[in-house]
Structures are given as C-alpha cells and as structure tokens.
C-alpha cells in the first residue's frame, strides 16, 4: 500500500534543458523526472520539434511536511531551422532525462578550404 492519490487535472510545465552543439550535431538534454518511455512523445512538424512527457509516477496524498516538487506533465517546443537533418534525430530516455541528438546537414557544415 502506498499513500498516493490519482492525478487530477493535468497541467503542463516547461522542463529544464541543457543544449550543446558542435559543427556536426546539436545535443539537447531535457529533464523530465517521472516520465517513462510510454509517456513520451516527440514530434517534428515543419520547423517545430515538440516534446510531450506525460507522467506515470503517483502523486502522494497526505500531509505535506515539505513541498518543493511539481508534478505536472511536461511540454517543450524547439524551433529547428533548415540546417538540421529531419531524418537524423535520435532520442534516448534514461533516468528521467531525454537526450536528443540532431544532426546538422552536410551542406550546412562549415567547409575548410585548404590553402595550396
């Protein structure tokens, strides 16, 4: 037995994000504690990449002696421009963190010209 109650009206919040990039790829880490694989949805529509994370963890019921956490679902939209290869998006969810790897199109990579 667990002292939890059903999740009521669903609210969304913006997850914390860390983004790194180099010449060939952009990597984003999206923190979504409480989201399992089945609750995660990633969509690309035109130049918008949307992440939705529905939580599956139970909300506790009882008297809160300390309350700092939020238990809303997550939603975040990224704008991706033409330099990103739509087919080269990889996603991995582990320990409540989604890792997104976006490949930069060959044509958009900087070219080095050798000086002869």
């Amino acid at each position, binding site marked *: 037995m667990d002292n939890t109650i059903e999740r009521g009206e669903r609210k969304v919040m913006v997850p*914390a*994000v860390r983004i790194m990039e*180099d010449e060939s790829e952009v990597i984003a*880490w999206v923190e979504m*504690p409480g989201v399992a694989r089945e609750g995660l949805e990633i969509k690309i529509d035109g130049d918008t990449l949307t992440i939705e994370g529905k939580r599956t963890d139970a909300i506790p019921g009882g008297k809160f002696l300390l309350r700092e956490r939020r238990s809303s679902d997550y939603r975040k939209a990224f704008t991706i*421009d033409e330099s990103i290869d739509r087919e080269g998006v990889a996603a991995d969810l582990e320990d409540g963190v989604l890792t997104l790897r976006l490949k930069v199109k060959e044509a958009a990579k900087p070219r080095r010209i050798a000086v002869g």
Partner: protein
Amino acid sequence: MDHTNIVARRQASPAALDLWDAFDDLRREFERSLDGVELPDVSGLLDWSTGPAIDLVEGDDEVLLLADLPGVNKKDFELSVQGNLLTIKGEKRREEPTKSRKVVRSETWTGSFSRTLSLPASVDPEKIEAQLRDGILRVRIAKRDESKRRTVQISVK
C-alpha cells in the same frame, strides 16, 4: 507555448533571442509559483534549482520522501539514516564542453548534492524502502504502530 530555437548558431543575434526566451520562462515560472505551489520555507527563494527538489509527505501508515533526481544514476547515489536524520547525497553528472563542443543553453543544476532532513518522531527509521526510477527517488518510511491512525468504534449507550 514555449519555443526555444535549438540552433543558436544560425541566428544573427542569438543572445537577444535567447533573452526573450529566458524572460518568457521566468514569467511562466513566476505564474506557476503562485498557482497553488507552496514555496519551501527551509530554503531561499531560488534554491530549488541548485539541488534536488523534495517532498516529505505524512500519510496514515507511512512517511513518503520524494526527490527529483533526473540524470542521477543509482551508483552515484547514497541514502543514510542516523537517528531520525535522513541524508541523501550523490552526484549528478553531465557532459562537459570541449574545444569544439560548446554549451548553448543550460538551465539545470549539476554536480554533487547533499540534503539532510529530520524525520517526524512517528516513523520507525528501521523500516525504510527506497527506489530510484525515471529520475525520481521514492523513500517509504513506515510509521511506528502506535503512531498509525486508527479508528476506534465507541458504542454509545
């Protein structure tokens, strides 16, 4: 809806665009803080972003501790109890930038963390169960039998 341009490099002035994003996030954050969320009274206003956020909830039969620990692996985490003091500590790792790979945006906390909480007198610190799953730590501490809520039927004559 929240939009972040994931490719800062393509913008003529990425800093300016990101600033609007940051303002937007801040506004939402503020609105949320007024929306039924109780601010912790044990820490400063913005302390939640420098370590794991914690809930401590007292139920009828047990006390539940929940902590948001996204990206924290079991092997980097430690839970200990001494008397009625419970301590969680560990390390939240992340990929560090290199010469060619730069950080474009960073909204999360990282590094080592440690928090100690005093448990209510009603619990039995010998009966603890902990689970770390999907970035959430869930610790169940049973209450002492005499502290459990009981309904006693009293017959009225």
